[in-house]
């Protein structure tokens, strides 16, 4: 069929794609092109068109800037910490819930633990401040019991613990959805056969349940690694002032403060572009690794 005939046949489909395409072009692709400011000395008063080009000097400044590397280090520290202390939580929760036989209890618990996923970060941080803050509920109860108070919110040493517990409170419950799905897909007769052969509940978990979860675990692990440079941006920017930039400055907040707050537009754009490109490479690499492991990965060719 010729182009014209196919065009005529599919014209309503194309028409339907038009609003989406228009928004993509304006708000995704034009800004991608707008990254040219990273090679300029951009000034808002003259605009992109008249700002002078300065070659790679912004990138050189970024790479020579110790505070940029501090932000990189903080970002990777948070990612690594959460990989160890956040990542396994939904798996454990899913195993626990899956072992609950009573449907009503299971459904009730699920509805409760999914809920915080739908709260905003402002809300979650507010709630934590009220509970764990200097004048919060925890300290009051501690004081009533005769203990010294702790202020988790403003203590830089406790910051990793704080943001990770917030992340767990908000998203660990939601995270169990995929694991429960994988668990529900296990054929019950496998368990029965294993039990008949004398495997107790722990051996059944080790030899049947965990292998059933393995593909999902690998997939999510790889996705998280690919996303290493992105840690909860809103969460961090909300708490950066309380705890200080020393531990709370990550790449995204670095770009925001340098660019939007300090007006060093070109420099911030260069830092943001480096982050975007490295992230993209990480995601693509992670996907490659997933394929090597025989998993489907994030995308696959049809």
């Amino acid at each position, binding site marked *: 069929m010729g182009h014209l005939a196919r*065009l005529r046949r*599919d014209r*309503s*489909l*194309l028409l*339907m*794609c038009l*609003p*989406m*395409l228009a*928004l993509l072009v304006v*708000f*995704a692709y034009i*800004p991608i*092109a*707008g*990254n040219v*400011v990273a090679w300029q000395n951009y000034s808002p008063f003259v*605009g992109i068109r008249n700002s002078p080009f300065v070659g790679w000097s912004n990138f050189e400044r970024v790479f020579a800037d110790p505070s940029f590397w501090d932000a990189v280090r903080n970002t990777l520290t948070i990612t690594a910490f959460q990989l160890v202390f956040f990542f396994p939580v939904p798996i454990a929760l899913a195993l626990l819930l899956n072992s*609950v036989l009573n*449907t*009503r*209890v299971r*459904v009730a*618990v*699920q*509805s*409760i633990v999914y*809920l915080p996923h739908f*709260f*905003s970060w*402002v*809300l979650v941080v507010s*709630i934590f401040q*009220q509970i764990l803050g200097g*004048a*919060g*509920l925890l300290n*009051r109860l501690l004081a009533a019991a005769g203990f010294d108070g702790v202020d988790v919110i403003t203590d830089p040493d406790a910051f990793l613990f704080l943001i990770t517990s917030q992340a767990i*409170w908000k998203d660990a419950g939601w995270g169990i*959805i*995929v694991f429960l*799905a*994988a668990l*529900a*897909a296990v054929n*019950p007769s496998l*368990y029965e056969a294993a039990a008949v052969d004398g495997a*107790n*509940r722990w051996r059944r978990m080790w030899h049947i349940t965990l292998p059933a979860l393995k593909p999902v675990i690998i997939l999510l692990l790889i996705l998280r690694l690919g996303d290493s440079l992105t840690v909860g941006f*809103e969460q961090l920017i909300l708490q950066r002032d309380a705890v200080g930039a020393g531990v709370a400055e990550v790449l995204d907040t670095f*770009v925001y403060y340098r*660019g*939007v707050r300090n007006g060093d537009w070109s420099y*911030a754009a260069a830092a*943001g*572009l480096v982050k975007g490109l490295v992230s*993209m490479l990480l995601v693509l690499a992670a996907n490659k690794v997933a394929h090597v492991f025989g998993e489907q990965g*994030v*995308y696959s060719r049809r």
Partner: protein
Amino acid sequence: MSATRQIDRGGPDRPVSTDVNGAGPVPADQVQRSRSSRPVWDEEPTPVGKGLKGLALVIICAAVVVPLYTIVLTSFSTQASITRAGGLVLVPGELTLDAYRQVLSGGVVTRAVLVSVGITTVGTAVSMVVSVLGAYGLSRTGSYGHRVILFALLITMFFGAGMIPTYLLVSSLGLIDSYWSLILPTAVSAFNILILRGFFMGIDGSLIDSARIDGAGDWRILAQIVLPMSKAVTAVIALFYAVGYWNAFFQATLYINDSTKQPLQVVLRSFVLQGVDVPGSVDVGSGQVASLAVQMAVVVIAIVPVLMVYPWVQRHFASGVMIGAVKG
């Protein structure tokens, strides 16, 4: 639910539905699992094990419920009860609606609620129209331009332009201090479109073919066959979009400088996190209402819409929605 079956192609090898309320039909293999009785081959757990499991479940649920409970209770408490408790109230004392009366009597918070409701309503409508049309437009493999358009959509999942160029664009479009700056840049989510598309593609092709033979065009097929068959997934996606708009905070701090146009999350931040007395929102003179009660009332107001929609949509959370989506 046939819906969740079809969407699940990317996931585990068997169709799964976490139709958690059991409201819809559940796949046969789950019916067996959802019986409360223990299979004969399974040994009875030890009392200690049972007790620990129960304790763990209670602690987990309490970690979510207790903070919400004390916040709601405090928002309804009088200054006297709050002073007696020394902060958040755990045991109900005297109750009052004063905090809500004060907050909703037409100050900054009232305006912020209206702004957020407006943005959420209009934004969700825009996003849904664009996404449903786009998802259907991309749902027929081999249609003209299909691969190129899909690719253009997928790229946005892997490479974001970055904050600075996006900010410069929004500002050069003159959208600073316009409500559209909170809607248009985030109106299209590739992820959500792929979920919808995956679902539309799973709909029985023979239905669509026979409609086409009967002379129906794509617009009619979408409106009269595809959409009515996709109510659950459409509801979930609409929830995702709506929650996104309702919760959006950073966008507003970036693009909205005019303090009279701030959405609720920004007001919540300055009011509760930064402890700022937003001018006009509190009648300082009367001093009747505890500021903690007022703060918690704002928190509750930010939660309520989520709590209202949640039960409606929650039963549709299909596991497959999450996994099936990521496949292109």
